[in-house]
């Protein structure tokens, strides 16, 4: 059995049901392909697995940039719908400094509010990046803590 890295993508397209159909270089086709990032936080553009409908890995993409244009477009489109991680631009208001706390925020995907269940739901990735998981499991990212405006940083600081 050929290892995943050796399998080459013949083509990728979307069928009428909106499912991705992958054709491998050996001619086999797989319907209902889902691309999954191996390191969504650490290295989002490297290491993407194309997983079949049964959860088996069909094909491994070392780096997204090496894909042909049309395939890349579809893969990125599908990834975008799976990796929902709004970037927080501003903290408008927090209901309380203890938890659970309701935060009104502005993100790159519009304004919304989130419920922070406990301080542990704020995960520090490195010196400046934070991932905040809300009550319903949506992950929000703060890309650069220091780039936030003064008021937001002050609010945020109370939880760190």
């Amino acid at each position, binding site marked *: 059995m050929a290892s995943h890295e050796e399998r080459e993508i013949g083509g990728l397209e979307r069928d*009428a*049901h909106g499912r991705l159909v992958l054709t491998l270089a050996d001619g086999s086709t797989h319907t209902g392909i889902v691309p999954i990032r191996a390191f969504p936080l650490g290295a989002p553009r490297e290491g993407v697995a194309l997983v079949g409908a049964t959860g088996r890995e069909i094909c491994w993409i070392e780096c997204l940039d090496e894909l042909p244009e049309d395939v890349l477009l579809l893969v990125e489109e599908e990834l975008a*719908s799976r990796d929902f991680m709004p970037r927080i631009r501003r903290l408008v208001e927090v209901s*309380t400094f203890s*938890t659970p706390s309701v935060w009104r925020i502005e*993100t790159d995907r519009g304004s919304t509010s989130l419920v922070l269940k406990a301080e542990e739901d704020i995960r520090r990735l490195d010196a400046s990046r934070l991932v905040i998981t809300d009550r*319903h*499991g949506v992950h929000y990212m703060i890309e650069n803590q220091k780039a936030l405006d003064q008021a937001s940083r002050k609010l945020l600081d109370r939880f760190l």
Partner: protein
Amino acid sequence: MTARPLAADLVPMPWRSGLLSSLAEDETLLAVLLLDLDAELRFGSGIVAVTSARLFACTAETGGDWKQWTLQSGLRLSHYDHGGVGTLELHDSERRLALWRYTLEQNAQALRVVDAFDRRRDVLAGLVEDHTAGEHVCPDCRAVLEPDQEECPICAREFETPPTTWTLFRLWRFARPYRGMLLAGFLLTLASTAATLVAPYLTMPIMDDILIPYQNGAPINAGLVSMFLGGLLLSALVAWGLGWAKTYILALVSERIGSDLRTATYDHLLQLSLEYFGGKRTGDLMARIGSESDRICVFLSLHLLDFATDVLMIAMTAVILFSINPTLALVTLVPLPFIAWLIHRVRDRLRTGFEKTGRVWSEVTNVLADTIPGIRVVKAFAQESRESQRFRDANLHNLMVNDRLNKVWSVFSPTVSLMTEIGLLVVWGFGIWLVAHDSITVGVLTAFIAYISRFYSRLDSMSRIVSVTQKAAAGAKRIFDILDHVSSVPEPVRPVHLAGVTGRLELREVAFRYGSRSVIRGLNLAVNPGEMIGLVGHSGSGKSTLVNLMCRFYDVTGGAILADGVDIRSVPVAEYRANIGLVLQEPFLFFGTIAENIAYGRPGASRAEIVAAARAAHAHEFILRLPQGYDSLVGERGQGLSGGERQRISIARALLIDPRILILDEATSSVDTETEKEIQKALDNLVRGRTTIAIAHRLSTLRKADRLVVMDRGRIVEIGQHEELIERRGAYFRLYEAQARQVDEEPVIRPLPIPEKEPS
């Protein structure tokens, strides 16, 4: 129509009129889903609604126009979720017609929409009869509701309210039982403070009646001197006695409050579900219960007491000063507002600072709690320096946070001192001026100076109360965070009691997710009393999760689990678990003797019962070989036991409570084949006559099972007996094949025996 007459009320106004006006005469609105995301995954709004004949949708993409589809067979509405985002798709046989997205906050609505859609489509196609008028079920757990019940009492959970900021007052709950002692302590404080104020008062007559007249040539009146000195000594002695009594009483009380707080927190912690422990780190919890409660205790016994004394002292001093000379008293009190302002300024910064130091301190303990149990791994991979670095980093972080805090704190305290010095200066200056103008005597000035140096020195220490109060408040908050946490496996409001459990279990449309990760979906299974079910499937297919749900370590997020026809969420947790015996892959032994460990679930068991259980678990003989038999210590720092031996002790533990339902989660996976044989014999004793759910990696272990349930990615894919499933050549066959191949490669493992069927 009884089903959800309120669905229309859910629809916000701009849509409601549009939607209701487009409904036909006999068409009713069944369910709505309010979308909070658009198809590009931006936050926005939209709506999907199911009526008795059509599916409606209105989103920003359609420009606010309504799209509609007539319910008919061939249409399919499917939903799935990933990473907190739910997706609803409408398909016909050819293609996808539409796609909507929402956050999981709306998941219950989405489920309702899918449910209503499927039901109505099938009713309209004539496939099923319309039951909705007769039966009214909760869309989440499918429990049958009373006709007038809108919300399912089991599924409705209120959102936890955040604790109030002034958490320290909440300590009153723990202080209440000691009201009497607290009152006595307060009265003693009052008295002892008053006693300390006698001495400065006596300086006035000593100065004016003895020293000044002597300077002016009058002889010293020995009687008067000894009277004043005696008075000074007496007041000191009384102050000493009263001070001792008050400190003792209040220390006693605060120690008790601290201890009550600790036990209450620990008790509450034990009630919390596994979900809570999954999300918390051991070091953090230990820090909260250990050092934070201690900090509060010290605060109550030392600082709060000092503070109360200080306030009393200041109040009394102020009264005395005003009674001696109002003008001078007024001048003396000038720096007071400044100090109050300063305290106010600094308070907020200090509080957040102290909250931070608390958290950072937990970080330090977390590193310890991580590495010490894992020390074997650390050493095996020679990562001591890395762990040391991790600890150093945590420590460094601790230093940094403290440094920042101390920057504020260190200016604060000298500033208060400076203020008091300036205050004294003012009093001296003004006092000398008053003496020069003969408004007051030298004695009065000395008394004033004596009073206010005390007064200000207290102010200085009083300012310290700010920091300790903030510290204690931060600690109290972290403790109340635990106390306020509502278990996600709550006790039922109106508990139902199980009378004599038979061991019948029924899983209805069970769904479960860890956070946003869906692990079990739409699972149905009925287990008869006394039946043995073998649960097999790839690792990660949700077997352990399923038994966790059966044990009610977690509550299902959809559907329901019923024991003897009763939803297990309506049975008191402990009462329900008393019917369950659990044997895990990694048996946990507590520190204590073997006998105590076996009797863990039934501390009252007699020695004979313990030995009988150990015999049945095939543990008796190896226990006898230990130097102290059943009295040997095991657990941390105890007698080392092998995996198989521990396992048999945990089986004996389960045997002893004689449960109706027995759950074995890979009970034999971590031991060698010989030991497995021993354990298998032990298990055969345990299984007899009980409802058993057994998970086993080696399929051979399940030879006694009445039915095998094959799971894959959170679903049941096959149910049947061994031969049936082999013949079907499905998922079970593949698992079996894979193991048979392994057996060929590894001759040590004996071939899989053909299961002997037992009459069920």
